[in-house]
């Protein structure tokens, strides 16, 4: 059911990745021998206990940080290994956990920043495209506002647009909807689904919210607690675009039960390990 992205690009292959943090001699194994595949244009959702190394994996793919062992490939090209690390670039776009819209730039300036520094578009051209995108999602009146004047839900949507305008091969979102309330969250899901259907890209989506994971994903990857490995991969075979009434369906509840059991077990382990560590 995976929809193919632009030219079928954006397949990620994670092979035996290990990451060890070693600041001042404290040996922390964040990930050990972690492998899985994300097909081109697939919506992959990564869930797992906090501090399990999901963000570590994201950093490695994005090129912010290196890995201790293993390889990561993007469309067959090696992008990360202990020997080689391809720098962050526009083909892998990240939407950050706490939001990283530049507060000193207006919404419009934020969105057109990418194409302009890359020298890919003229300013007027970029503005026109950005306007179209804003219009399409019903946010046309906010282009001259500063991010901090907007509610966090709108900030998030602008940030996703800022990423999409660069036409990346992979979009990585690190718990983008954390802290939003139920209604705002459903709006965000609707928005993201709209974006994904009109501009299909490979999605790498980290979350803690299981409803969100199953509702949005083609593939839910459940990670174990530290050191992170793949515990289970659950495929969600429900047609796109999805609507909220599927939340009550038999298939959905079955999937949720499956994911819930697996995640809860890991969360408990992580919690107990954390408690032991503090003592």
């Amino acid at each position, binding site marked *: 059911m995976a929809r193919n992205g632009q030219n079928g690009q954006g397949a990620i292959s994670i092979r035996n990745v290990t990451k060890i943090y070693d600041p001042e001699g404290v040996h922390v194994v964040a990930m050990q021998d972690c492998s899985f595949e994300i097909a081109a244009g697939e919506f992959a959702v990564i869930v797992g*206990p*906090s501090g399990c190394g999901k963000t570590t994996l994201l950093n490695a793919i994005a090129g912010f940080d290196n890995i201790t062992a293993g390889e990561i490939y993007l469309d067959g090209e090696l992008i990360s290994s202990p020997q080689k690390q391809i720098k962050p670039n526009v083909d892998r776009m990240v939407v950050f956990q706490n939001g990283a819209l530049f507060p000193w730039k207006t919404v419009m300036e934020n969105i057109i920043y990418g194409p302009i520094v890359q020298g890919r578009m003229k300013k007027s051209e970029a503005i026109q495209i950005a306007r179209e995108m804003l219009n399409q*999602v*019903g*946010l046309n009146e*906010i282009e001259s506002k500063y991010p901090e004047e*907007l*509610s966090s*839900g*709108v900030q998030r949507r602008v940030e996703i647009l800022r990423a999409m305008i660069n036409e990346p091969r992979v979009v990585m979102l690190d718990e983008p909807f*954390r*802290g939003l*309330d*139920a*209604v*705002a969250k*459903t*709006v*965000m899901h*609707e*928005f993201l689904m709209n974006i994904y259907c009109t501009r299909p890209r490979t999605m790498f989506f980290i*979350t*803690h*919210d*299981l*409803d969100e994971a199953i509702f949005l994903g083609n593939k839910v990857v459940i990670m174990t607690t530290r050191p992170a490995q793949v515990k289970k991969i659950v495929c969600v075979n429900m047609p796109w675009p999805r*609507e*909220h*009434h599927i*939340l*009550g369906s038999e298939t959905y*509840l079955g999937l*949720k*039960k499956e994911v*819930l*059991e697996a*995640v*809860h077990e890991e*969360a*408990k382990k*992580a*919690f107990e390990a*954390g*408690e032991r560590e*503090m*003592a």
Partner: protein
Amino acid sequence: MAGNNGSGALSSGNFGEVYVEGVTKIYEKEDECQTVLQDCTFHVQRGKLTVLMGPSGCGKTVLINLIAGYEKPTSGHIYIDDISVVGPGRDRLVVFQETALFPWMTAYCNVVFGCQVRKVTKCEIKERAELVLKKVGLYEFRDKYPSQLSGGMQRRAELARAIINDPKILILDEPFRGLDAMTRQLMQEFYVGLFEEVGRTNLFVTHEIDEAIFLADRLIIMTFQPGRIKAEIEVDLPRPREFRMLASPRFMEIREQAIELLYEEAAKAFAAGNKTAYDLVGAVVARKGICKKQA
């Protein structure tokens, strides 16, 4: 997660109930009046866990401050049992958003603060504090400062600080906000276990729909600007609650019902040109689609 010894000593079993009757709260700011709460009436039943839910900024916290006695309603009355609320008191303890642990006191000192200022004898304090700290699983961490505790531990310390005083009513204002979803789930289970054991009157405020349904005996849904009571839902999930219920059909049914109510409000706010309406643009669209399907 915590020891299960001596639950009887945790409480004298003297619990209260809250009546909120026609409460309105208006803030005046430089010739501008803002109605935060309008004619709120509801009842927090004795020995039940009542959850107050509404979108962020709907005046839930103000309502809590009124019940706790930190602020006065512009009109209307609040009664605890039969006594009108005039100021803060030890019969209603509040666990605050984020955390209101005193950062300069250790976990132990925080927990015993209330007893100390009331001049309870030293050995009684010690005995009770040990019991409560063990109960919440913080006995080994009693000499740590709040900044040295993890988020989950801070919340438990705060719970301990409240229950050691055996309040008639325990009020929790989004106590698990800011925790990540996994820890949050575990804290909810811990908290609900604590409630089921003692059966104290609890008023729990949250904007998280899953949290609300998972915990509640009774769910009160508030509207947005001005805050009003929109609906009350009886949550008939069996007790003791456990996490598997999150995937039960009944849970999803109540969830759908609650979201329906919230959407209705969102659409109204959007139609009224509300400030935060941008968040709701999609909500209305999404709703229309779903209604079509159901019809």
